[in-house]
């Protein structure tokens, strides 16, 4: 179990390779199998990871975040390192083990019936 927490004192790497796991519906929409690996400039945040995700897969725009407000859709959650990051500020640094690719960043459809 990872207990990584953001460490603002760590120097930002120039680029980070972040692993993102999408829910099945969005994997099918983006036509990807398994994890997505994204190159993110600077210390990765939820916003920069999702920006990179949407830049590579434009069909995902509006499915995770609202087009206009960029706020997380109500039935979408963000997990990493066994923590719920859904309510963290979008510009907060992601845990170091996500930034270095050890742990994936999970986009999850909330459990709410079928």
């Amino acid at each position, binding site marked *: 179990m990872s207990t990584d927490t953001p460490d603002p004192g760590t120097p930002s790497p120039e680029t980070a390779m972040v692993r993102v796991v999408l829910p*099945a*519906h969005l994997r099918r929409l983006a036509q990807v199998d398994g994890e997505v690996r994204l190159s993110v400039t600077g210390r990765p945040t939820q916003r920069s990871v999702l920006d990179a995700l949407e830049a590579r897969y434009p069909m995902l725009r*509006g*499915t995770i975040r609202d*087009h206009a407000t960029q706020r997380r859709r*109500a*039935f979408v959650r963000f997990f990493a390192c066994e923590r719920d990051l859904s309510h963290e500020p979008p510009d907060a640094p992601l845990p170091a083990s996500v930034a270095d690719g050890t742990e994936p960043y999970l986009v999850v459809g909330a459990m*709410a019936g079928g």
Partner: protein
Amino acid sequence: MSRVRVLVGTRKGAFILTSDGKREQWEVSGPHFAGWEVYHLKGSPVDPDRIYASQSTAWFGQLIQRSDDGGANWRPVGNEFAYEGEAGTHQFYDGTPQPWKFNRVWHLEPSLTDPDTVYAGVEDAALFRSDDGGQTWHELPGLRGHGSGPQWQPGAGGLCLHTILLDPRQSGRITVAISAAGTFRSDDSGKTWQAINRGLRSEGIPDEDAEVGHCVHHIAMHPDRPDTLFMQKHWDVMRSDDGGDTWREVSGDLPTDFGFVIDVHAHEPETVYVVPIKSDSEHFPPDGRLRVYRSRTGGGEWEPLTNGLPQRDCYVNVLRDAMAVDRLEDCGVYFGTTGGQVYVSADSGGTWAPIVRDLPPVLSVEVQTLP
């Protein structure tokens, strides 16, 4: 020999049913967009291989899918539906102001002349248009802004714009229906609008014949007679012969005048179909008998059509966009149920047979008549 392609939207994906002109043997493809709600699919009358589909879930929002090969392959196009200007408020169920918020696309209506132009009726109620094949969408704000918008209130399914009729004779005339606001018409391609609800009476609102507030469930029009409109209201089947300026009731001898669907025979503008539903609190056919009712007199006098339909223990519903007619010489009539059946009659309603029995709940049915 002509063919038909039936486009079926369901709670868990889309299905495409194809047959030759006999409409006896069917091929079924799908589910397309499996697991997503598909409120509506519709093909361009100019280019039948161009089909638009509305795909959504509460989780991941709205997508618009487009096919350029008759539904074999699809690709997502634009899904940003932004209200024009200050969105303002409509009424919530309890009458309090509620900010306008986009939820989903209920109905897609391709242009009669240009396959790249398509209209979208959305919840919360507004009309959008795309002129680039669905890549980008812009609201026609004159509808919400014509004055009565702040008084609109949702029906049980939401504040949805679910019917879009394009007049084949007057290119600028668009008629739309909204639950539970009523019917509205534009004669200048959607710039300005007027409410056209005179003659409607609804017991569920304080002023029974108010200008707006009526729960219109669906409207149908025969393309050769666009001034004649047939409406299934929450209660009451209605008819207008002046483009919606005035309405009169034609429920006649129906066993119940509650229902959702209504459609018009392809070649007989006075032949109309409805599926009576018991009541607004019991959304199933009266007596557990699934009956389509047909009027050959433009309403008033109705006959039950039962041959091939279940006449006992049937408690499905038929939702507002789930009936369609083809344009073959022997007009085919189609409808889908919340029990997952899609029925066809290849003889104008005389006999019925299920094309499929076990789909997810059917939300919409459209049919394309192909060469």
